[in-house]
């Protein structure tokens, strides 16, 4: 049965539903239906592609889809909500890898200067996105230190590698007869260099900046996919359009995220943020510990409580307990609000998702701009597993955090910091907040600590 005539119409419909899907995903109420629209479109596009004229290796294609699809499905189903950001990085990297492979196949065949050039650029971007995303995945997964990894002369080495990559790319496109390097050498060399560059480019970026980086590699992959669309004859317009849309949308999203964190892209990529200790000696005083029972009393006699959660809460899986605590306090007539920093968790919006999963209602969640004026009138602030997002060092010139918008929890009458130990935050910077007079530290695993807090409160 020849259904090849259906391919273009189906691709057109696919693009239509992709755009509608993205549009719906950008509004909270319609977001969920958006991915379903896009998903249905992807399914029919995949099916109709089997009818491409002259397509062979059909069994191989089916096997590859089952292997890759099966892995993607199972891994994504099993992963905990807290680990979602690195899964996005992983799948994005795979898309980039697929794009790099398509470029490689295109370059193995005969190509004109134009298609060759486009395939080389697509291959470079795809391979960088692949390697970089995998490093981002390793860092967030904890398989690699999340701090910036730097070495002397790093930027020079990176530049040199990039230059070599470009040179080998140019050699592939021009295939000059004068230079006796065969394509069999230069093509693998080009991809190895691109891959290496992706790794080196990502190593010096600290864990705190990873969301921005993942978002940027997401845009990269989109761009690589679009460029690969050109390597088919006729061009695969579905790939070009979908890829460019992701490239544009992803770039914009990256800029918005960087803005929310008050980091410029140049800073993210070349700043090696958090690699060095802050100018020490500026932090005065000591950390003062407090017992659970005392915190319970403090809470019981408070009128207003604000909870500032961070990634530490999610790591300790304390969301459920925190929700219980919230209910308990509300039953006592105490107002409880959540202060959500834009980058609490590992990505913008990640914390909202984690709290929603635990059943905390949306109207209790307030973003930074809404809640900051309320801190001075707040009796108790519970900082649960947050660190950099509440560090008042951000107001101090000279601190690496300077200028980052933070939650001004230090203005509250009492600040209780629930923390595993005395370590530093993701950015690796000392937190002034912990040394303030109105701050008390409640050490221990967040889930257990909140559990004990609930018990103490019930006894009061």
């Amino acid at each position, binding site marked *: 049965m020849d259904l090849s005539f259906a391919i273009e119409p189906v*691709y057109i419909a696919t693009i239509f539903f992709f755009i509608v899907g993205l549009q719906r995903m950008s509004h909270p109420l319609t977001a969920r239906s958006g991915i379903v629209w896009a998903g249905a479109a992807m399914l029919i596009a995949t099916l109709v592609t089997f009818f491409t004229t002259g397509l062979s290796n059909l069994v191989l294609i089916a096997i*590859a889809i089952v292997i890759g699809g099966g892995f*993607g499905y199972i891994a994504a189903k099993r992963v905990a909500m807290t680990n979602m950001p690195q899964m996005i990085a992983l799948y994005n990297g*795979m898309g980039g890898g*697929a794009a790099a492979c398509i470029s490689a*196949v295109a370059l193995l065949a005969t190509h004109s200067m*134009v298609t060759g050039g486009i395939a080389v650029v697509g291959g470079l971007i795809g391979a960088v996105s692949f390697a970089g995303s995998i490093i981002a995945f390793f860092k967030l997964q904890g398989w690699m230190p999340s701090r910036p990894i730097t070495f002397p002369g790093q930027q020079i080495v990176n530049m040199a590698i990039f230059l070599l990559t470009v040179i080998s790319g140019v050699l592939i496109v021009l295939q000059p007869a004068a230079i006796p390097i065969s394509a069999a050498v230069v093509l693998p060399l080009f991809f190895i260099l691109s891959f290496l560059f992706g790794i080196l480019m990502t190593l010096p970026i600290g864990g705190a900046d990873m969301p921005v980086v993942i978002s940027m590699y997401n845009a990269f992959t989109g761009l690589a996919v679009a460029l690969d669309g050109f390597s088919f004859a006729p061009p695969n317009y579905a*790939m070009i359009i979908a890829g460019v849309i992701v490239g544009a949308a992803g770039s914009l999203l990256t800029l918005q995220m960087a803005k929310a964190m008050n980091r410029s892209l140049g800073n993210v990529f070349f700043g090696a943020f958090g690699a060095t200790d802050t100018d020490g000696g500026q932090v005065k005083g000591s950390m003062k510990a407090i017992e659970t029972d005392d915190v319970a009393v403090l809470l019981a006699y408070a009128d207003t409580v604000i909870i500032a959660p961070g990634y530490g809460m999610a790591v300790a899986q304390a969301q459920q307990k925190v929700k219980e605590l919230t209910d308990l306090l509300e039953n006592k007539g105490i107002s409880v609000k959540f202060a959500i920093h834009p980058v609490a968790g590992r990505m913008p919006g990640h914390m909202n998702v984690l709290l929603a999963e635990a059943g905390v209602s949306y109207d209790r969640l307030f973003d930074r701009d809404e809640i900051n004026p309320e801190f001075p009138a707040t009796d108790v602030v519970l900082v649960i597993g947050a660190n950099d997002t509440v560090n008042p060092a951000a107001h101090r010139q000279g601190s690496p955090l300077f200028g980052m918008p933070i939650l001004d929890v230090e203005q509250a009458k009492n600040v209780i910091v629930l923390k595993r130990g005395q370590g530093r935050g993701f950015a690796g910077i000392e937190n002034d907040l912990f040394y303030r007079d109105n701050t008390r530290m409640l050490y221990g695993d967040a889930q257990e600590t909140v559990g004990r807090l609930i018990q103490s409160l019930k006894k009061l």
Partner: protein
Amino acid sequence: MTEITAFWTAIYIAMLAAFTGYVVISRVPVILHTPLMSGSNFIHGIVLVGAMVALGLATTPLEQVIGFVAVVLGAANVTGGYVVTERILQMFDRSGKKPGKGA
């Protein structure tokens, strides 16, 4: 259509697509940044169809191997991207009564 006409047509299309992507994403609330990133991650999974064609038209064993890897990676991008996005957006569904068990 000659190759060069098709090329320029594709450039026109790409330019319009860039504007589309820009317009669709601007003015998005911060809480939707993660799901949107995940959603657009799924959409570039369209690379799968290119990978299928690359493998389907492959003639040499080397092309077949690279094409096979491309399809595996592309398919993982598609299914993984979909499931992750779906799971994140599920959390936004206020009608969903049962609160999760904390993963």
